């Protein structure tokens, strides 16, 4: 017993020494970037000291979806403005109860702007905004009525309409599916837009819809997808955050068994994550762009508290991913472009609720 212990302790000691070495190595560049930010203060970046934080919902920052997209927007902001590494940060929420303290952490620490990502954070962000009237906050996907909050919403129905057109034209079984996360106004816009697009392109195509009730449960997404494919659909559009990973997983399984099925991704270009062999196209929601733009406005002193911004096809806030050309034939994409033009011109009004 004693022998084992001594061997173990020696091993731990040497390991910790080794690792301590690694630890200090990674710290060095952090200090350097700090210096760089300081010395380049005179360079074009006007406010090298600006700090922007964001709070994710329970999906987390690696949700392959809008939380991740928002975080990418902030990282892009950091590189664009040459900010020190610690000047953009995020906090992840593990439950509803975390939203308020997480938002408060940034606000009380005096950050220039704090983002709440997601509809579910609306009430909580409002509470924090009211309690800290001198802070600046912004939120994605929810309308918050407070003088120090800028709300950014997307016309998901317009982008989803185009995804619906692609699905209807590409479906061989004349059945397509929709997997939603929680049945909230945002996701409802995805669903209604998608259905409208399908029916516009081909009224004979049937849409099977399932709401899983979760944004962070891939297993629920997988079983929903299995149910929809099982009913004969060959293309599924998901708007379910991390739950959608399960939809892709099920699609891949079936594809590897020789079934001709597809998944339409959401929020980001999901072909980059899940591959071109399963991702037909993605309905991209430019959360990153919105986060980047509004954050930059704040840094430039152009914060518009109390304003509600809607981003649709016309503003390039939503749309199909550029990689769509790989799997979607040119004639279908041409049709998509025609519909897009009609929506932008207002000739087609896509239902949102």
């Amino acid at each position, binding site marked *: *017993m004693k022998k084992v*212990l001594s061997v173990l302790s020696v091993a*731990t000691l040497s*390991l*910790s020494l080794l*690792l*301590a070495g*690694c*630890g200090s*190595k*990674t*710290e060095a560049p952090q200090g350097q970037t700090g210096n760089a930010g300081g010395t380049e203060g005179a360079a074009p970046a006007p406010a090298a000291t600006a700090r922007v934080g964001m709070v994710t919902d*329970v999906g*987390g920052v690696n949700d392959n979806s809008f939380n991740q997209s928002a975080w990418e927007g902030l990282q892009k902001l950091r590189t664009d403005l040459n900010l020190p590494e*610690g000047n953009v*940060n995020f*906090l*992840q929420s*593990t*439950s*509803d*109860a*975390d939203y*308020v*303290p*997480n938002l*408060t*952490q940034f606000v*009380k*620490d005096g950050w220039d702007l704090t983002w709440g990502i997601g*509809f*579910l954070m609306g*009430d909580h962000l409002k509470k924090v905004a009211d*309690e800290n009237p001198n802070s600046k906050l912004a939120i994605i996907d929810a309308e918050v009525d407070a003088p120090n909050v800028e709300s950014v919403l997307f016309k998901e129905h317009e982008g989803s309409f185009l995804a619906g057109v692609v699905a209807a034209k590409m479906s061989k079984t004349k059945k397509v599916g929709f997997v939603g*996360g*929680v049945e*909230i*106004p945002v996701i409802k816009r995805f669903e209604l837009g998608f259905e409208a697009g399908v029916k516009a392109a081909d009224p004979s195509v049937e849409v099977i819809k399932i709401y899983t*009730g*979760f*944004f*962070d*449960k891939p297993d629920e997404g997988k079983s929903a997808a299995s149910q929809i494919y099982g009913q004969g659909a060959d293309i599924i559009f998901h708007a379910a955050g991390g739950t959608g990973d399960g939809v892709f997983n099920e699609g891949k399984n079936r594809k590897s068994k020789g079934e001709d099925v597809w998944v339409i991704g959401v929020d980001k270009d999901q072909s980059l994550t899940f591959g071109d062999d399963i991702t037909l196209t993605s309905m991209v929601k430019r959360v990153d762009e919105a986060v980047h733009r509004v954050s930059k406005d704040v840094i430039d002193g152009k914060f518009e508290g109390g304003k509600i911004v809607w981003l649709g096809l016309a503003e390039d806030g939503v749309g199909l991913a550029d990689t769509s050309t790989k799997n979607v034939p040119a004639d279908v994409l041409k049709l998509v472009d025609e519909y897009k033009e009609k929506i932008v011109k207002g000739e087609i009004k896509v239902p949102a*609720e």
Partner: protein
Amino acid sequence: MNKAIAVFTKESFLVPVIAIILGLLVGAIAMLAGGFNPILAYTALVEKVFGSAYNFGETIRQITPLIFTGLAVAFAFRTGLFNIGAEGQFIVGMVAATTVGVAFELPAFIHAPLAILAGAIAGGLWGSVAGYLKAKRGVNEVITSIMMNWIALYLANWVMNSFFVPKGQQRSEMVHDSAIITITWLSQMFDNARLHWGTLIAVLAAIFFYVIMWKTRTGYELRAVGLNPHASEYAGMNVNRNVIKAMFISGLFAGIGGAAEILGVFHYQAILTAQPGYGFDGIAVALIGGNTPIGVILGAILFGILSFGAAGIKFTAGVPVELIRVVIASVIFFVAAHGIVKVFVKPILKKKEGGN
């Protein structure tokens, strides 16, 4: 003086303390492996929890439901039952409190207590379903109570969606002010941290736990059934009734926890997109606390500090959330695994014996 030393070298004190230290050490190694500075991380944790009135208040808020679910699991454990259903009992407690809080209009002195009572009874009844199935049909309570968690989750969402959620919303209407148990003056003292009477109720519940378990005949029977159901039956106790009773009281604790969370923290019930998690954390809390009421309170404090301070580690030291979960898990692992820790404690205890 010698007495003081005796207390601090007592095994029941040494084992958890050394376990926590070992857990933090393993966590530190994990952080080093990830290239992060563990000292900075642990300082950040302490600073997050004790650094400001607001965060200290919010830590208390985080600890409160863990005491309730910890008591629930510990109570059942004492009677030989493994109540994994604290989660579900917590949820039905939330639903009952929301229902009473939104649907009735009553004067404050009766409204809030009634809402809490409703939560308690709902949680108790939910727990006793698993108890009944165990007693009458011999169905393992682990399986039924875990399934009841999911039933509770979806039932709660259905009830909310059908009766209390306004169109286009994702949460119920606000409960009436008369049912709210937030302590406004204390909350303001703590910079708007969400403090509520539930914390006091949690401490009272721990006392209730102690009294009923060790000072009443009911408690004696419950413990006897837990230790040896066959002997208890032979001694003339009604084992089946005691199993149901144990699950009912266990559920009471979790139910009050759910009610306090609604009436004290949120003031409305959101559509649940995931299990709240307090019930499962309660299992860990009960384990850390050795299934004693005072142990549960201490365990909840530890767990609450770790899980609330986690945000501070992320914020200040930049350690990713996943790695912080590893740290928390390793602390729990060592606390729960008494056997491993005792190997480390032995030399200290031996020394003490030698000294005397």
